[in-house]
């Protein structure tokens, strides 16, 4: 039995627009999504903003009723057997909300333990152990309102493990964490996987997905457009290589010129304070370099590197971006 089975999930939101002349607009958040996650698998859900990731996670965590289609989590139907599902899952929607800020970390955990019906004898031992696991030892007595954002997110991890669920849904859990915190967080995720937990993870950090996930579904505009292992996804772009050019304040016309080159597949730009990193995807490999540099003539350039494609390159091609 798969831990998570999703069959043609579909969800439409009705939004009322306007105050006086009210009209109803329908937004298809999830068009038609199907996939299955095996027991103990760490499964990634990637896709651009508004692709329907959170909506999918909400339906799988019993917080939203699908418009049509169905899904089973831990073998139970997410609508008809919602309570059975809830007993077996933990979930986090990224960010710092969703905790009682006026209460201490310990009190928050105690309350959620009682909501999950955890025996007090067990929660008395488990709460300190979880606080230690997420690096909040000694801070449990402080009010959550005084926690930093990262601390609140760590507390969310502890919260969601109180009842020792088999299946975890983590929607952008590392959003807004500092690099060290995010790294620790990824280690926590790996530890959880080694405890045989099934994890569904959404993230916008491609290296994170590459490093953590066994398989990845890329969704766009409410549908699955690719589903494979990270290396399998990279094969989509194995014909490509990437010319990385460091520029300092390159003019957008120059970048457009690069984009217009016939052998250039796409160009994405990473902004760093003073400099930009142009990532030019092309099938020509190193031979493309002279013409790319010619197109950038007159711009201040730094390092130029030709490298193998990454998951991010595969993603960019899949979602069709000249991002």
């Amino acid at each position, binding site marked *: 039995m798969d831990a998570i089975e999703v069959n043609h999930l579909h969800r439409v939101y009705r939004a009322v627009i306007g105050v006086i002349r009210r009209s109803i607009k329908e937004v298809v958040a999830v068009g038609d999504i199907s996939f299955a996650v095996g027991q103990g698998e760490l499964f990634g859900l990637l896709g651009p903003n508004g692709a329907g990731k959170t909506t999918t996670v*909400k339906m799988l965590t019993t*917080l939203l009723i699908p418009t049509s289609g169905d899904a089973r989590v831990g073998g139970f139907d997410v609508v008809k057997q919602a309570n059975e599902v809830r007993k077996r899952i933990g*979930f986090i929607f990224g960010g710092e909300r*969703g905790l*009682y800020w006026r*209460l201490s970390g310990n009190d928050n955990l105690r*309350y959620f333990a*009682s909501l999950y019906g955890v025996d007090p004898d067990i929660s008395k031992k488990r709460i300190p152990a979880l606080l230690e696991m997420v690096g909040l030892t000694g801070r449990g007595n402080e009010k959550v309102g005084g926690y930093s954002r990262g601390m609140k997110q760590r507390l969310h991890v502890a919260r969601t493990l109180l009842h020792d669920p088999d299946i975890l849904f983590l929607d952008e859990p590392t959003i807004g964490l500092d690099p060290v915190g995010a790294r620790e967080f990824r280690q926590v995720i790996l530890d959880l996987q080694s405890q045989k937990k099934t994890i569904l993870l959404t993230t916008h950090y491609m290296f994170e997905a590459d490093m953590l996930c066994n398989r990845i579904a890329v969704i766009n505009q409410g549908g699955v457009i690719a589903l494979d292992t990270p290396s399998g996804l990279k094969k989509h772009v194995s014909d490509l290589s990437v010319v990385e050019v460091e520029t300092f304040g390159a003019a957008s016309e120059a970048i457009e010129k690069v984009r217009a080159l016939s052998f250039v597949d796409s160009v994405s730009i990473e902004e760093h304070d003073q400099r930009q990193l142009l990532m030019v995807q092309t099938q020509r490999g190193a031979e493309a370099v002279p013409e790319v540099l010619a197109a950038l003539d007159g711009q201040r350039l730094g390092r130029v590197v030709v490298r193998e494609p990454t998951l991010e390159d595969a993603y960019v091609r899949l979602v069709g971006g000249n991002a």
Partner: protein
Amino acid sequence: MHTLVVNIRLFWQGTLLSYIALFHWLRPVTYTASKILMPLAQMMFFVLLGTYATSASNINFYVIGNAVQITAVSGIFGVTMSIGNDRSMGTLPYLFGTPANRFALFFGRAFMHVIDGALGVVIAFMWGVLLFNLDLSNTDLSALGLTILVTTFSTCALGLLMGCLSLITANVMFINNTVYFLLLIFSGANVALDKFPLWMQTISNLLPLTRGIAASRLLVAGSSLESISPLLWQELLIGVVYGIIGYFMFAAFETVAKRRGTLETV
């Protein structure tokens, strides 16, 4: 059996924590001060105004009415906040994602406010004795205590219903204030009910507090528990009815929010 234990525990935790949250919000000193001074302020205002407008011989009427009315502070504001807070904290998805028994969850939030509200009324009665010569020598004090508890319960039950409204409206404080002042008028704390036109009396009779205040006045005047017990039963019934309506609204809120996808939006 096991389920029962789990639910009782949940009830208690909710009770305890909504109270701790209240304490963190109002520091213990602030809390104590407001607990002692707030009844005094309301009583001074209405007792002085009432006796000035009518006659000094009516003083007991205003003292008792306003002392019992104090329970609406916890019953309406306290209870509403402890439910409505979940929307502003963004905890609703996490709450509704648990398998917790919604009944224990819902009523646990209100319970501490019953104690808190009753305490407020007791303090208000003490002010009555100290400052306004309220004479309790003819009063069955345990019957008065029971009346206070029952009245507080029914007021909190109305508060639960308002708490549910606070989950679907953005304007909780406005609604709360309105209800508080409506209770102040309709409960008969400051106006004898028979001075009201019939339609107003009907509303009074459908609200909590009204019978509790009437019963308290009778008890202070020397009536026995037996003679006021019909009032108490009715007051209790009103509380149960509001509590049940509130609970079903809470359950309906959850269902509708999941269908419409409005768990996090107003």
